[in-house]
């Protein structure tokens, strides 16, 4: 197990190098001008001399490889540079926001896994039954619905028509303090939307896995021994049916990140979404590279966790595989 973790950590190094260099290369090739983005509307009246000075101060006219190397070497010492668009150190900019994004994504993920497993088991119990048909067709429909659209729909229904939930923000607009109760009520809609957008994959995987397991020998054996249906379903079928789901958990992380970006935009959730979009369109190299590196780490970790869980759940799978 330790060897698996160690090997993955080693593997992560070249991946991170390639990904961050890729970000610098793509950003440098983009038609966006970081100086224009930095200056904003003031740039529309600034003199050329002023803009040239800005370009020199921001260091954006230096060669791509040099900029990447500087960023990389100072990042290794814990200095991620200064974000040009947010006018603050990258570490501060990310530190202020990442917690809220993690809270949103983690809540949604847990809800999606629990609800997905429950619905999947119910559907698998009687394949072809009305519950199965309802759950599967709902899952296929949701699979096609973009989170952005789901979000707008949720705001329209719960905030505007029913008036039961706040439509956006982290806390009530008028309040200046962040309390757990307020955050909880403001979290409901965005987390629910994000969870629902992730739900179909879990439902379908669990349904398939449990359905297959119900036809396997161990389950038929258990039934033959006269064990209660509940024990058979949850103790035997679910256990082996959950295995593909564990792999799925890892592979859903990238989708979860992009889904969270869209949901944060709809609900004015103060996570890293706005910063990511801004970093990309204003060619804010240090912030963009740090955010991409972070997302890459999240995906690699997700895969590692999935493999570890898989190994723990099924002793036949070795950690060296």
């Amino acid at each position, binding site marked *: 197990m330790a060897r698996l973790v160690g090997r993955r950590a080693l593997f992560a190094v070249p991946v991170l190098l390639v990904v961050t260099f890729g970000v610098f290369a793509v950003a440098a090739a983009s038609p966006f001008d970081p100086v224009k983005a930095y200056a904003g509307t003031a740039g529309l009246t600034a003199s050329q001399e002023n*803009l040239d000075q800005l370009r020199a101060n921001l260091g954006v006219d230096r060669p791509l490889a040099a900029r990447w190397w500087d960023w990389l070497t100072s990042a290794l010492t814990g200095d991620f540079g200064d974000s040009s668009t947010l006018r603050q150190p990258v570490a501060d900019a990310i530190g202020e926001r990442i917690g809220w994004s993690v809270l949103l994504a983690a809540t949604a993920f847990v809800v999606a896994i629990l609800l997905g497993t429950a619905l999947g088991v119910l559907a698998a119990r009687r394949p072809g039954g009305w519950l199965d048909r309802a759950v599967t067709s709902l899952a296929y429909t949701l699979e096609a619905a973009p989170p952005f659209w789901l979000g707008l729909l949720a705001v329209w229904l719960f905030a505007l028509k029913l008036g039961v939930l706040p439509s956006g923000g982290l806390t009530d607009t008028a309040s200046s303090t962040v309390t757990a109760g307020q955050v909880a009520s403001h979290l409901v809609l965005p987390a629910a939307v994000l969870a629902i957008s992730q739900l179909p994959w879990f439902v379908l995987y669990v349904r398939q896995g449990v359905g297959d397991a119900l036809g396997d020998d161990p389950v038929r054996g258990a039934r033959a021994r006269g064990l209660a249906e509940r024990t058979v379903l949850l103790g035997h079928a679910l256990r082996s049916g959950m295995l593909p789901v564990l792999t799925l958990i890892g592979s859903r992380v990238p989708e979860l990140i992009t889904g969270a970006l869209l949901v944060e935009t709809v609900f004015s959730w103060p996570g890293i979404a706005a*910063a990511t979009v801004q970093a990309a369109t204003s060619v804010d190299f240090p912030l963009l590279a740090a955010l991409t590196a972070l997302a890459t780490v999240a995906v690699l970790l997700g895969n590692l966790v999935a493999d570890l869980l898989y190994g723990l759940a099924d002793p036949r799978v070795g950690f060296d595989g």
Partner: protein
Amino acid sequence: MRARSIRGAGATATAAAIAVAASACSAPGDGGSDAKDSAVVGIAYEPETLSPLLGYGKDGNSKIFDGLLTHDADMKLKPALAAELPEVADDGKTYTYKLRKGVKFSDGKPFSAKDVVFTYETILDKKTNNASKTELDAVRSVEAKDADTVVFHLKYPYAPFAERTVLPIAPEHVAGKQDVNTGTFTTKPVGTGPYKLVKWSKGEKLTFKANPDYWGGAPKVKNFTMAIIKDDDIRATRLDAGELDGAILPPNLAKKYKSDDAKNTYAAKTFDYRVVTLPTGNEVTGDTDIRRALDTGVNRKAMVDSILYGEGKEAYGPVPTDSPWFTKGTERKFDADKAKKILDDAGWKPGKDGIREKDGVQAKFPLWYLSGDKLRQDHALAYASDAKKIGVKVEVQSGTWEVIEPRMPKDAVLAGGGSPADPDFDQYTLLKSSLAGDGFNNMAHYDNPKVDKALEEARKSGDHAKRQAAYDTIQRELVKNPGYTFLTHIDHLYVVDKKFGDLTTQVEPHDHGLASGPWWNVEDWQPKK
């Protein structure tokens, strides 16, 4: 995973669902602020920084800070951190400010002349990433004569200089001790203003608390929140849901509040213009007859009515028709027949498809607008449709500034701008021939020696009558040889709850800064009991 742990997980999930449902039930309707001493407004724009050293609040009125001078409701200058208006000497090259005594920053430290010198010197420093420093181009040096006197020495006589000294003053004892471009001062500012920043939750809101020791008296509205909601529809929704007391809205959404008994609608007059640049580098747009024909051949009234829903006015130059600087008699009446006659007389004859031709050149040119900007798109399409009626083909195209900028010397652009403080600010950068192609200045590469001369006279002279005469000359020249087709000046619309009484708005610039809107003087609001 055993059955027992699955049951356990189920129980946890149920408990979580109940907890979520319970918190959901407690949420409804407690979002609005009924307290009369607090106000929540929705704005569409978030500043990148709150540091005046990087350009925040440069046009005055920043809530957290004060400038040496400030504007009243009529945009007249009045003293703020200065005790009186400046003394101008040395033919307009020396400005002396006496400072108000006993003013303190909100951290309790006293304000003095050295903070003023620090602020201006830092902005002018090459290492400071301030994109607006060109505006202080006239300054040669700033000097603290004593603790209460500051003297500005200018490179050349600059009549509107006092207008530039509305920019906020930063405390040297805080901002001087950190990196000016990225230090904590850019997000946690300290100033002398009527409000203190409590928290800036980026992407969500800015919350302010009244400064009880404000030199101008403690504000009645104790808590002030600016919620940042970029989407127009979501802002209107949250206004409806009672989460906001006021908001800026586009004309089509503001309309429905006119009949709302609980809310007032305010239309702020502006200098915010939309204009088509007619670059001299293009053989069609560079032709004076084409320019004059377009000037009379576009129906500005129709644009105001259909694009702005009547919330704006026709524009004939950067100076709005209701400004005292506007030259009466330079209005161009919409007259398509006259426009056609100008072209006929000049030898632009209708060719195939009705597009006019002269010496083998077709009367057509591209017109760019910033992609995603609906208002500019509507203006561009209306312009093209009017031009087509007089036989000029305008090909409307959209792009980002990166695409548009290299094409500016030859292609027309649907641009916007406007600063109300002084007529010099817009006209000098739009029309001065030496600034052609300098960044976004003089985008049309306009070159008219009479205008150049008048621009210099107007900025150097401290005499109001002389300046007025010079600006009259410029506006009359623009009738004879328009380098731009000015289309409209756009009103900015706001909706605010009536509990705050009748409010006022200032004449607003092109930018939707934080200080725009009826809350420009929130520190003076007297909420109804």
